């Protein structure tokens, strides 16, 4: 018997999901459902958009109007949806490769516009769907099928990138800290403007195995033991923060939202 939350929010006929045993995407998807309920979103007015990759397959299971788009383009599709119908709540579900590699341009420009979209990044530091290639968030020195001698690329800090590009709400949570994840996602959904929540996720099948991170429990315990709340991190040195996951809300600012601004253009042009 699925839990009541799952019965309400998911297309149970499509379950079980396709993710590997131990993948954190399932529990993050459930947490998102809880956050949507807690934020009080009306199902009819809520659109969930995703790109391509493991994380993006979530939309098939979510009982909303859902659209699984092309690789990296979820935010561009979502921009069209939100701008065409600003009354809709638009949530984007994406992964690290989808949003910060092929979709990197769309990410920075959605941030810059401060359009009212909530972007949840299921960041597992790897391309899982294609079997474990390095992504822009694979830490330097780690291994992947396409980094057999170690990754020489520097890794992106997605919330920092988003904040620098103009996102008015950025945060990071972990798959381990699921209760905090629900709370932060709820705040991101309620935020007026563009919000980004980076969910530090685990991929035991590809990232974990390739980098000898141990089993699922070990990977989650590592998250527990290495998470540093943003307040505590402010008092720590760069060296002390090496290899740590800084969690919490990095910024929560008010700035005119894009579709509101466009309404002013319509007024100026005499269209209202």
């Amino acid at each position: 018997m699925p839990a009541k939350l799952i019965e309400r929010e998911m297309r149970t006929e499509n379950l079980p999901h396709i993710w590997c045993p131990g993948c954190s995407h399932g529990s993050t998807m459930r947490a998102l459902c809880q956050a949507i309920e807690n934020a009080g979103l009306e199902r009819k007015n809520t659109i969930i958009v995703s790109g391509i990759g493991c994380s993006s397959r979530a939309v098939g299971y979510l009982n909303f109007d859902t659209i699984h788009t092309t690789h990296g383009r979820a935010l561009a599709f979502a921009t069209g949806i939100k701008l065409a119908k600003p009354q809709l709540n638009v949530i984007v579900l994406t992964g690290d490769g989808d949003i910060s590699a092929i979709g990197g341009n769309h990410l920075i420009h959605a941030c810059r516009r401060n359009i009212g979209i909530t972007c949840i990044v299921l960041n597992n530091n790897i391309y899982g769907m294609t079997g474990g290639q390095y992504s822009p968030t694979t830490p330097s020195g780690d291994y992947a099928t396409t980094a057999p001698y170690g990754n020489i690329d520097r890794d992106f800090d997605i919330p920092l990138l988003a904040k620098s590009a103009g996102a008015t709400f950025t945060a990071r949570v972990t798959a381990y800290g699921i209760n905090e994840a629900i709370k932060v996602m709820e705040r991101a959904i309620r935020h007026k403007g563009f919000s980004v929540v980076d969910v530090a996720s685990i991929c035991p099948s590809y990232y974990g195995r390739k980098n000898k991170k141990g089993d699922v429990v070990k990977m989650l315990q590592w998250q527990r033991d290495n998470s540093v709340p943003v307040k505590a991190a402010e008092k720590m040195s760069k060296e002390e923060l090496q290899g740590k996951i800084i969690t919490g809300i990095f910024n929560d600012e008010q700035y005119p939202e894009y579709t509101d601004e466009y309404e002013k253009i319509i007024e100026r042009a005499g269209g209202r």
Partner: protein
Amino acid sequence: MSKRILMQGNEACVRGALKAGMRFFAGYPITPSTEIAEGCAVELPKVGGKFVQMEDEIASMAAVIGASVTGVKAMTATSGPGFSLKQENIGYASMAEIPCVIVDVQRSGPSTGLPTSSSQGDVMQSRWGTHGDHPIIVLSPSSVSETYYLAIRAFNLAEKYMTPVIFLMDEMIGHLRETVEIDDNVEIICRKQPDAPEGKFEAYKGEENLVPVLPVFGSGHYYNITGLTHNTWGFPTNNRAVANELNSRLLNKIENNRRDIEAWDEYLTDDAEILIIAYGGSARVGEDAVDMLRRKGIKAGMYRPITIWPMAEDRLRELSQRIKKILVIEHNNGQYLHEVERVAADDAEIEFIGRINGAFILPEEVTEKAEAM
């Protein structure tokens, strides 16, 4: 009520689209289509519509599809290099059956090519630019007036058949100024919506004419849209039988309805002994050439495809069985020529004049070749 207005081809495209009910445009600056984006930026807010200049061509195409799933008629406009970039999401719109209009004001390629020179080099790309076997409708106007009315038809076909429609202009027509007689009394088609209470809906079932009824997002039907092969509920599947059914329906959706979609024009074909085949900008050259040949006593006529795809090939076959000399003229190296050969090579002698340097073919070149045939 009708009024006569002098306008540019690109402007006629904007006006036609607005008349059709376009209320969303996403684009990226590119010559020679930029006037379309500029026109939309001015006009859309006046009617409560939205214009957005996206970060790139790919995003523009994506935003157009996003707007369309909410039920808003949406368009983008570009030229060769941008058309290449849009192919990814044009394929998505084709697979997911999202109506939208993509304008390609062709310029000379390949690559960045001759940005301010006309061309018809994107004809095959308009049919096969995106990967996989997919349906598409391509329309090509050959005057400013036709640009206006055909832009309306582009939206009508998109909404009726739930498909992207490529509006294949060329620089010659895009930057041409002619008088358009605007007739307000035109047919406007909006996509069908389900006659069902809110709740789960089998969106991709396809009706008798094979066209699906896709509820607009926000109407309470909670279905999934994907570019993956999907079942009738929109959920991804690898099932071979389902894949075959979906892909066949997608292709037959256009094929079975081609009588309704196909459009072409004929000029003096009744007694013609030589048939010029041209479309878009090259049809302007062709028409002049027919007149010049007639003045010389040569019975020339012209067949002008308006729907480039699907090609009105039954009519072309009929003509080629009667008129044994065909001269194809295109501002490219012979792209549609192959389609003409496919249909007419058994019955008629086919010659070709092309141009790949950004210049136009001159009517005199056509008459000279025709006279030698």
